């Protein structure tokens, strides 16, 4: 997508919401989950879970701990729940299947709390994503992600991500974002702070002997 092209696809209400959002107000900076597709590019591991009946779940792990701990993809052939049983969540309800050598992950049931990007692009609970993972060679994983949200965009959007395999011995490690989140203080604000109490932040941040 060319710069500015995403803008042209936003419905008027979404454009207006986005224009008013400030980077510091994104839920992610307060250690809340990033959602999809924001979490996708980060270091990831796919973990398959089997029972005697075969593959039942794939867990997509990301390192961004509490803001992206794991996604659960049901591989047992089930359908998405009916609307009355579908409670919106940060990563939605994912079902998956194999299409030849392509892993397809179909997700609905996202809440509208996370941002599509750092600029504040909004979405609605109607958002539906389809991820198609292919592995052209051992060290490369490709993801084609279609984002379809008729509540916020005028047409579906396509993303393409390319992943490289990490060298052996490198693992995902614990990441607890909330343990020492000092985001904003250097800039005179905190994520929860509407207007930025700069003087208070200055006193909080400085230490002189």
């Amino acid at each position: 997508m060319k710069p500015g092209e995403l803008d042209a696809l936003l419905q008027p209400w979404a454009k207006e919401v986005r224009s008013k959002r400030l980077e510091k107000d994104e839920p992610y900076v307060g250690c809340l989950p990033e959602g999809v597709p924001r979490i996708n590019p980060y270091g990831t591991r796919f973990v398959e879970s089997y029972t005697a009946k075969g593959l039942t779940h794939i867990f997509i792990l990301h390192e961004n701990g509490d803001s992206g701990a794991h996604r659960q993809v049901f591989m047992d052939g089930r359908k998405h729940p009916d609307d009355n049983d579908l409670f919106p969540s940060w990563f939605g309800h994912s079902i998956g299947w194999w299409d030849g050598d392509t892993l397809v992950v179909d997700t609905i049931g996202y809440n509208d709390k996370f941002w599509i990007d750092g600029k504040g692009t909004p979405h609605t609970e109607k958002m539906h994503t389809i991820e198609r993972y292919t592995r052209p060679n051992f060290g490369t994983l490709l993801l084609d992600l279609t984002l379809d949200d008729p509540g916020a965009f005028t047409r579906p959007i396509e993303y393409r991500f390319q992943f490289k395999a990490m060298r052996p011995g490198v693992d995902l490690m614990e990441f607890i974002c909330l343990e020492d989140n000092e985001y904003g203080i250097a800039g005179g604000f905190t994520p929860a702070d509407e207007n930025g109490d700069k003087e208070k932040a200055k006193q909080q941040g400085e230490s002189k002997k």
Partner: protein
Amino acid sequence: MKAKLGVLLAVVGLSYLGLSYLSVPLLAHHGFDTEYDKDQKLTLTGVVTQVSWMNPHMRVYIDVTDKEGAVTNYNCELDSPNNVRRLGWGKNDLQPGDKVDFEANPGKIVKNRVALVKITKVGEDKPLFKRGKPDDPKQSSSK
């Protein structure tokens, strides 16, 4: 035949260098410009008071004494502890009491909260840590 994904570990864009020279890839420091001034760079010498291996950003605290003898403690932010570890920095490589030369971008409001650019132990040639430019392309391709 299906291509089994198994336990493939995949990552975008990280670079790994030898242990003798560590460079931190700037992994999408969210909101760098809201907090730090990338056009200013401080160059200082001081004594490490604390090394904090905590998420989301590791911090090194350094006491710097000015010409008048006043001491300011700098709160220096790095990348996540996991990413710094992956570049070879060990738990004990930097200790309170170590004397260091460092470069950093200052906070826009709170000047002693800084984003670390480079740090070298005094007397050693190679930096312990060196960051790319603050306006390096962000890792996330979703923007």
